[in-house]
């Protein structure tokens, strides 16, 4: 009997803390929106954060995009060649990258590269009481720390995803046309005939905006909510990666199911 009560007690506690985190995360998001006007008055803060989240992620994005594109080109060629339609490789690479891999892989890399940095930085600021110090000086930590990072993530993510898609297609072009020798004209013309700007490219961009929002707000909240100890910060950083990745993959399924009917 006691065990049963303990079980339900623990279950309730776990559920309650999950709900608390969801609610506190939503509150943080609305506070960020409210304080955004304040942070835009010092726009260089946001631009500085775009440098740290966007520009510094550029190398890992470009390199992995090129390899993903090359793998797609190689794998696609092996299969399509069996059906004598190796020219369709361009369509395969472009649609896979623009619709799925561009936004999703970028978001996963973004969570690992930029999200963890955000969480660790804010968590450490909290642990060393820098956030409290700001409040003492009547500077809102949300306007000064959270909002610039939020907008930087929202702006960087779609840019990075677009660059990822384009570099990935160049990687596929490199393998399919330059290495294997698929006809170049057919590669591009079949791609143009089957990739629609408003349906495929814009929908991919919408995905990347949604993923950028999810990754950034999760990283910010985990940092803001981290227990102010070394262990707390390290756990919060781990949670950022895990929760961001799962959220991105789940959201991707939902978005895909009603975007590409």
């Amino acid at each position, binding site marked *: 009997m006691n065990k049963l009560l303990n079980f339900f007690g623990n279950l309730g506690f776990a559920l309650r803390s999950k709900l608390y985190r969801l609610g506190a995360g939503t509150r943080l998001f609305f506070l960020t929106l409210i304080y955004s006007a304040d942070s835009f008055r010092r726009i*260089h803060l946001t*631009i*500085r954060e*775009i*440098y740290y989240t*966007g*520009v510094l992620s*550029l190398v890992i994005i470009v390199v992995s995009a090129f390899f993903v594109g090359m793998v797609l080109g190689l794998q696609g060629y092996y299969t399509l060649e069996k059906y004598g339609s190796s020219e369709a490789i361009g369509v395969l690479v*472009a649609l896979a990258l*623009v619709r799925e891999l561009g936004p999703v892989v970028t978001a996963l890399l973004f969570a690992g590269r930029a999200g963890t940095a955000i969480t660790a930085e804010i968590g450490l600021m909290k642990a060393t009481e820098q956030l409290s110090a700001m409040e003492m000086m009547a500077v809102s930590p949300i306007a000064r720390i959270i909002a610039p990072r939020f907008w930087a993530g929202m702006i*960087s993510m*779609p*840019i*990075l995803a*677009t*660059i990822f*898609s*384009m*570099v990935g*297609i160049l990687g596929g072009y490199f393998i399919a046309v330059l290495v294997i020798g698929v006809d170049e004209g057919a590669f*591009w013309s079949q*791609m*143009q*005939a089957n*990739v*629609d*700007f408003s349906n*495929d*490219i814009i929908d991919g*961009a919408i995905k990347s905006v949604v993923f950028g929002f999810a990754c950034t707000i999760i990283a910010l909240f985990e940092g803001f909510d981290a227990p102010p100890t070394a262990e707390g910060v390290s756990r919060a950083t781990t949670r950022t990666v895990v929760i961001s990745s799962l959220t991105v993959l789940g959201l991707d399924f939902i978005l895909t199911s009603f975007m590409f009917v």
Partner: protein
Amino acid sequence: MERAKIDIWVGILVALGIAALFALATKVGNLTSNDIRETYTVLAHFENIGGLKPRAPIKGAGVVVGRVKTIVFDTEAYHAVVELDIDKRYVFPKDTFANIYTSGLLGEQYIGLEAGGDEKNLLAGDLITHTQDAVVLEKLISQFLYSKASEEE
């Protein structure tokens, strides 16, 4: 790092993003090849449209001259009414044939227009009277079997 340097790097990132989007739109997508802007709409009735879909191409002598706008089912005459958007640059005679073809053996279906000899041209809202339905494979096979059977008798 000083502020000016950061600004330059962020500027480079944004420029790269815009360049990538531009390249996606023109080189990968169909934003440039889709140069059909001003169109006029004509109607065509089909007994069977097969697998024809909205936005399927309309071709004259193999050249894309327009796109299928809408396909609806007429509940009074029990046939399909297809609206064709044709580029204003191309005019067709009134007795033009509209046929539903398949590109390749398993490809997508499109409407092929074959010009007739009428002096007057099709205008917006006109009806194409000469149409040929999509080929239904099952019908074709059954016709072939019947003709074979009758030959043997």
